[in-house]
């Protein structure tokens, strides 16, 4: 095991390499640039290729090409680049091409603030492309160490589910310097709870079963099996025909291979002070959860019955954590409230759901403690400017 004081970007590059990634295509963008830089340094050392694409759209298409040729591929960006993934993302989902996509959130919309953390892509990562009829898998770490683990996990899930998997980080995770331990052998990986799945090859050509089954390897070019892969409706023969019935089967697979296999990743969450059915459940993901966990601990010492639920598996949204009628507070790095909408949908009727939004910076313990106190006392949330909004 190697131990470093390094950035999340560095940790993620090492993680991708341990997971078997030998192809990275990227486009410089703050705050994911150093990941591309790390890959350009590290990949040639391990017999891999780094490509700098002409734009993010090309970057993910380059990954598609490499994955079609049998390589494990990855690309990374921030919000303004993530929207350019929309085109290839649909292809990769539809053609079931495994790869890993990292999105490091900054403050939007558009270019916004480049060097500050934001969580404006909660829904964007659920719907990264057009058309619907698919399910997305998104993992959201809250530290450099966990980002490393989640990238390895994303490679594992992408192979087993045969789809692109997104790791949603934020600027503090990818740019921040932290104490990072990196496994060097497969045994160390296992000890650290990390899972590995090799790229396998499906001989085809009937590789489009209408099944939710796991572990069907992806199509590969260059094996002379008559393998076909296109952006149109695939059928059992691999031909494109515009038939609703066939497309329905295709969509069934894209949706239910994820929904019916949630046990693969549904354990990715963290609960603190949640054993005694707290009156207020504070829900967060990513770096704000680190402040939330501290604040919830302090609130407990002050006698407030508060618990912390940190989501790591963001999508498909884990509704099972929201079955109990209680007060909920979503703490997010945005001012418009995204996670809170999903919580509102998932909670029992007439639950009390609140939102605390801050963007470009983390909430303070004081902000959080005041908010907990007010919610528990059924007092209206005070509007500090416009960053605190009663939902």
């Amino acid at each position, binding site marked *: 095991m190697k131990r470093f004081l390094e950035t999340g970007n560095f940790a993620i590059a090492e993680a991708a390499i341990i997971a078997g990634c030998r192809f990275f295509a990227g486009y410089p963008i703050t705050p994911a640039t150093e990941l591309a830089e790390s890959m350009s340094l590290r990949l040639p050392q391990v017999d891999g290729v780094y*490509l700098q694409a002409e734009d993010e759209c090309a970057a993910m298409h*380059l990954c*598609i090409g490499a994955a079609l040729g049998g390589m494990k591929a990855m690309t990374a960006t921030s919000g303004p680049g993530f929207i350019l993934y929309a085109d290839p993302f649909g*292809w990769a989902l539809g053609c079931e091409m495994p790869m890993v996509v990292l999105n490091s959130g900054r403050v939007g919309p558009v270019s916004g603030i480049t060097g500050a953390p934001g969580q404006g892509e909660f829904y964007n990562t659920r719907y990264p492309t057009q058309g619907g009829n698919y399910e997305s898998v998104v993992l959201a770490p809250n530290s450099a160490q966990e980002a490393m683990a989640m990238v390895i996990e994303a490679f594992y899930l992408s192979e087993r589910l045969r789809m692109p998997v997104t790791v949603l980080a934020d600027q503090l995770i990818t740019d921040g310097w932290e104490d990072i331990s990196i496994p060097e052998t497969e045994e160390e990986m296992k000890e650290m709870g990390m899972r590995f799945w090799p790229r396998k090859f499906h001989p085809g050509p009937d590789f489009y079963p209408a099944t939710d089954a796991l572990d069907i390897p992806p199509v590969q*070019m260059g094996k002379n099996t008559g393998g076909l892969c296109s952006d*149109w409706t695939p059928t059992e023969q691999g*031909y494109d025909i515009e038939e609703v019935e066939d497309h329905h089967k295709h969509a069934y697979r894209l949706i239910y291979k994820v929904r019916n296999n949630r046990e693969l990743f549904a354990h990715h969450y963290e609960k603190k002070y949640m054993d005694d059915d707290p009156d207020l459940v504070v829900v967060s993901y990513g770096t704000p959860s680190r402040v939330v966990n501290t604040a919830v601990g302090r609130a407990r010492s002050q006698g407030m019955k508060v618990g912390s639920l940190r989501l790591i598996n963001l999508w498909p949204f884990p509704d099972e954590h929201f079955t109990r009628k209680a007060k909920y507070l979503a703490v997010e790095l945005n001012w418009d409230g995204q996670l809170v909408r999903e919580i509102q949908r998932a909670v029992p009727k007439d639950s009390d759901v609140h939102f605390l939004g801050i963007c470009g910076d983390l909430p303070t313990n004081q902000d959080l403690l005041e908010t907990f106190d007010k919610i528990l006392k059924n007092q209206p949330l005070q509007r500090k400017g416009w960053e605190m909004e009663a939902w």
Partner: protein
Amino acid sequence: MEYYSSNLIEEYLRTRKIPSTACSGCGLGMNHKVVIQAFKELGLKTADIIWGTSIGCAGRQTFATFKGDGFAGTHGRAYAIARGLRIALPPEKKIVLSVGDGDAFGIGLMHLIHSARVNADITVIVHDNLGYQSTGGQFGFTTPMGVKTDSSPYGMFEPNLMSEGMDVMHILKGAGATFLARHVVLADGAMAVESVKKAILNRGFSLVHMPHPCVTNFAMKHLGSRVPVEIFRWFKERTAPLGQEKPNTIWATGIWHDASNTRPEFSEVMWGATEKIRRTGAL
């Protein structure tokens, strides 16, 4: 099925995809045959080739026609996919892309230029039907000036890649392409086969531009007739070999640029550098 049982078809094509879904009278079939004929004359087997297509008439009608491995990319992105695939595939595998003009010279032009820049070993066959015909017939970036289409009802007047002396071939040559040719198959089909062969043999970025008639939309709108012979004649009158252009020539056919095997190829460069860095830690 006697009509379809030629050796070419049985060797290279999926008979389930024949007859083609292209309109009757479409020039795409002639272009398609030229490419397959070139495979045959080079002695290539289906195992040697990855067939890539894209969106539009050219992409849709030629996807899955090839018996071997094939993919269809999203609109304009097949060149980026092919570049990634080039890295992953062994060098002896050929990648042949069968795409349209909107795909190559419109939405995908940037990816095309970057593929030429790195001299990726890809053969791009552009089946140019002079616009966006599968969406009903809108002008594209090679539509001749004055031509009426559904989106140029007053005649084509916006400058494009084939107007005012500009030519898309110059752009690609400047970008680093190592083989460029243009052929109108109904005028010089045999030459087209030779050019496609050279394009495939070039270990680098090759593009063969093959304008062909669209009977259904282009001809109907511009010439007012769906009779194939009308548009075929219109095409032939505007085609001349390079160096023998007439005042009304739009398509000068022949080899525009042949620097085959003069530049290092993309995947060789990348893997060569990787190998050296892995061994020595530096370039």
